């Protein structure tokens, strides 16, 4: 593999020309300017030289025996390893010189003979600087893409955290009364056995209640586990026919612990035929939007625009003109009109540092786009917000 030659911390320039006189003039000029100079007297030698050690810039004569300059340039530009080295063509004014072909071959510039010291100096310096800046920009872009990937990952982890803590709390409640019921049954049975006493009426009544508690608890847990299948199913990211009502219900079960004590959620969902969608991702959107609404209601209570315990979220869904309209309306703090057009921008957030990545709505928007739908927001500060999602009924 070729390596960049910085051994003397000077830029290196390769000059390829079959004319010894030209080589001599240019070499002297470039050495005076502080460049390290290598020479090649033919196209083949030029390519070999580049392969053995990558120069910072190449001055390339067009008319050489064997492979001509255009061909040398095209060869270099077709290789990932060499394509970033800037090539400046050399040409005599008297020669037949096709500028267009030179640029098409991948040259960045050309210098005409006889060489003028100043011109050669400026053109070489410009292109070396340009290449360095380009490399820096490429690096910056790569860094940014890496960071973006990390943030999207952390948003996913945050969503996962929300999901698991929700599920843990929802399951914990029935587990608590099942545990106590089982423990009570155990006590009663032990008493019966040790005292050798037949069950009386009171005990029969207790048993009835306790068994009913246990089966209710198990039913609750089953329902929660069932709603989780939407996420664990291997095809949750694939397009499949799914029931929107089920998607919304499962999101509400998972979010239950976050709103049940503060916010009333009303649902008004008409009969909707199965829609073609990625159920896991749609549920992620519903969770995200409800989570935003709960936060907005919390802020409204703090700001005093609504009373405590009057927080309300209304979810409606219906079909019109072969489209499914989903509206999620809250009576939270609302969004100021000056930032309403920014809320879908990646990384835009009004939450304090560490409370949000600013990617929630941006990810919602890209998921809805994948579904060929649209998402928009209507909000009045101090009154509340409605998020409007429109999905095509036939899906994608």
């Amino acid at each position: 593999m070729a390596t960049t030659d910085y051994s003397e911390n000077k830029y290196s320039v390769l000059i390829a020309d079959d004319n010894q006189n030209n080589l001599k003039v240019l070499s002297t000029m470039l050495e005076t300017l502080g460049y390290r100079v290598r020479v090649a007297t033919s196209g083949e030698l030029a390519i070999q030289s580049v392969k053995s050690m990558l120069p910072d810039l190449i001055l390339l004569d067009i008319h050489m025996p064997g492979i001509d300059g255009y061909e040398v340039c095209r060869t270099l530009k077709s290789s990932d390893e060499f394509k970033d080295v800037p090539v400046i063509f050399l040409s005599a004014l008297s020669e037949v010189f096709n500028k267009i072909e030179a640029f098409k071959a991948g040259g960045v510039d050309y210098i005409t003979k006889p060489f003028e010291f100043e011109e050669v100096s400026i053109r070489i310096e410009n292109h070396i600087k340009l290449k360095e800046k380009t490399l820096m920009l490429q690096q910056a872009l790569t860094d940014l893409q890496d960071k973006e990937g990390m943030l999207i990952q952390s948003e996913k982890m945050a969503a996962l955290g929300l999901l698991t803590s929700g599920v843990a709390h929802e399951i914990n409640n029935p587990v608590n009364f099942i545990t106590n019921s089982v423990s009570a049954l155990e006590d009663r049975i032990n008493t019966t056995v040790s005292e050798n006493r037949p069950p009386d009426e009171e005990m029969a009544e207790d048993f009835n209640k306790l068994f009913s508690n246990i089966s209710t608890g198990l039913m609750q847990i089953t329902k929660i586990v069932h709603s989780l299948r939407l996420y664990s199913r291997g095809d949750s990211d694939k397009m499949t026919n799914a029931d929107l009502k089920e998607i919304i219900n499962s999101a509400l079960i998972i979010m239950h612990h976050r709103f049940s004590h503060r916010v009333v959620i009303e649902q008004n969902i008409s009969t909707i035929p199965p829609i073609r969608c990625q159920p896991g991702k749609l549920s992620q959107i519903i969770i995200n939007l409800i989570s935003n609404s709960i936060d907005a209601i919390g802020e409204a209570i703090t700001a005093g625009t609504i009373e405590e315990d009057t927080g309300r979220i209304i979810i409606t869904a219906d079909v019109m003109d072969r489209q499914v309209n989903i509206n999620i309306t809250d009576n939270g703090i609302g969004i100021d009109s000056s930032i309403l057009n920014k809320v879908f921008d990646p990384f835009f957030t009004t939450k304090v540092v560490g409370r949000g990545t600013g990617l929630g709505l941006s990810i919602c928007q890209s998921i809805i786009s994948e579904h060929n739908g649209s998402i928009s927001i209507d909000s009045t500060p101090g009154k509340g917000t409605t998020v409007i999602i429109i999905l095509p009924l036939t899906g994608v």
Partner: protein
Amino acid sequence: MEDKAVVLYIDDENLNLCAFEILFRKTLNVHTTIDTDEAVEMVRDGKIDVIITDQMMPVMTGVELLKKIIEIDNSILRIIHSGYVDDPEIQQAYEDGTAHYVLDKPLDKRMMLTAINEHINNKE
């Protein structure tokens, strides 16, 4: 046999109340309610030794309820019984003495009974 400790248990899930009542009927004098305002009234009527309350409830949180109870009778043993033991409000209540104990869900029966017995013995 000495008198059983009078325990008031508050939770917004009826099944929790029901299971608790049947489980401890023999060892404790159990009263339950789903309604925090009613709980305050019951404390006002007197004779409660121990209050065990859920944290997340619709009208007021368990910690808020305990603060009201303290104003009425400071001698009652105050226990928060919640699945949210990491909740900052609970942590704060434990540190400043609003709650004497914080018990995780599901309930550790022995820990609760030990706490109650200790409280009753100290009182006597």
